[in-house]
């Protein structure tokens, strides 16, 4: 009997760009990776899959931190300024400071 494991979606979907169990499209991730630098020539099949998970964790963490700011303001709508505040308050998100300050 076939049991659906955590990666059954991977087995069916592969990396053809379908999301499968991944929350983010692998083809798009691959495109972004390629654009990140001229040095990036070849990307292994597992790299976009790894990033799909890493991005999920990243978005979750930044969202949770932003939501804390929202709650401090006694609001129920998470807005852009909350995300900016969370970035500025978190050392490991220093690489985003210029990005959030531009807009």
């Amino acid at each position, binding site marked *: 009997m076939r049991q659906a494991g955590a990666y059954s979606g991977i087995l069916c979907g592969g990396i053809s760009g379908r999301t499968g169990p991944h929350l*983010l499209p692998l083809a798009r991730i691959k495109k972004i990776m390629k654009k990140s630098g001229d040095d990036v020539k070849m990307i292994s099949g597992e790299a976009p899959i790894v990033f799909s998970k890493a991005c999920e964790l990243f978005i979750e963490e930044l969202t949770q931190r932003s939501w804390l700011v929202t709650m401090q303001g006694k609001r129920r709508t*998470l807005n852009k300024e909350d995300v900016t505040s969370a970035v500025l308050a978190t050392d490991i998100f220093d690489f985003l400071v210029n990005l959030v300050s531009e807009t």
Partner: protein
Amino acid sequence: MVDEPDRLLPIANVGRIMKQILPPSAKISKEAKQTMQDCATEFISFVTGEASDKCHKENRKTVNGDDICWALGALGLDNYAEAIVRYLHKYREAEREKASSRNKATCRSSPEKDEKSSEDKSGQPPQQTEAPTARLAS
């Protein structure tokens, strides 16, 4: 502002991940989702850049999962690095299992094309000649 939507992660997917982690009553402004889209895309570029530098220094052409794990650690994103190392391990295990079950399927593919031929008395009923992989799936 966004001229090339293809250069960013899709806003619907980003929004879904945000929604999942927040309380059900929480609302998210469109601008917040757009900012998160930008940040997550930049995250990929940033980590990839670091991973790619490492590959370049080591004269390797292909950025792989291990390089990404390393880059996450090198950039101070240690908690992500640990989680992703575990995830990568499970993924590779799943791939190995898939490959080995595929091998077993090709080994078991029955040579019985002619129902009358009884040279191979493996005891398998004739209807199982059609789809050995389907048999595995049942």
